[in-house]
């Protein structure tokens, strides 16, 4: 079966392309990226700020039950063309991953289907590769934090 979400990251390049076809009209696909209340639901992070307009900025944050910040990210919006395109920067706070440039293109396929193409450009090949490995690293972090919890209880 062909995968719905495709990630293309050619060796030695500092960019990647993520594509996905949605069983949604392009207006709803765009709305899911523009409205803070909806972004919160699928990103799994709190949206502290999201000004969906040219020169606007946004801020995302994820905290654990104790209120400790697990993840923070922010960026500025360079282009905001409804149902067509969003160009923005994205930066994960307190990480060495630098700032990435994200170009989201929204495309109508039929009245009820649409396509998203995310073109992401990193500062270097090394940074792109680190970000690609992040979900694995987060798994590591999680395992490590659990371990620390257990160990600190024993002390």
């Amino acid at each position, binding site marked *: 079966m062909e995968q719905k979400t495709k990630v293309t990251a050619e060796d030695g390049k500092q960019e990647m392309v993520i594509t996905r076809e949605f069983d949604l009209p392009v207006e709803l696909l765009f709305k*899911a990226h523009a409205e803070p209340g909806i972004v919160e639901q699928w990103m799994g992070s709190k949206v502290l700020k999201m000004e969906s307009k040219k020169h606007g900025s946004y801020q995302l944050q994820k905290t654990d039950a104790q209120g400790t910040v697990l993840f923070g990210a922010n960026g500025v919006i360079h282009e905001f063309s409804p149902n067509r395109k969003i160009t923005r920067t994205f930066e994960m706070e307190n990480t060495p991953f630098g700032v990435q440039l994200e170009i989201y293109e929204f495309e109508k396929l039929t009245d009820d289907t649409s396509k998203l193409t995310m073109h992401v450009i990193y500062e270097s090949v090394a940074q792109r590769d680190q970000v690609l490995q992040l979900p694995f690293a987060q798994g590591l972090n999680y395992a490590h934090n659990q371990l620390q919890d257990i160990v600190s209880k024993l002390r």
Partner: protein
Amino acid sequence: MNLRRDVFQAIADPTRRAILLLVASQSLTAGAIAANFDTARPTVSKHLQILTECELLQQEQNGREIYYHFNAKKMKEVADFIEPFRKMWDDRFNKIEVIMKQYKTKK
């Protein structure tokens, strides 16, 4: 070198993943690694041996001590290293479809 050891086998174990995380940020001796775990020292040694055999860790002699380094290059060779990332986005996009279909019916 034990050829039965492969990278996937190595990263399947949570303690070994935690060891990789530790060593990824700085090179450490076996003793320093073991100090982070509530596991018997020989067990940690066994984990280090497995990680070294599949080349995720590299040993380097520094004076009288042996330091373990994280071999990021080997990690990259893991054929599916992109898969967790793709899966993360796939999950997010699936959520978008579910959430937005509710808006569709509301219209």
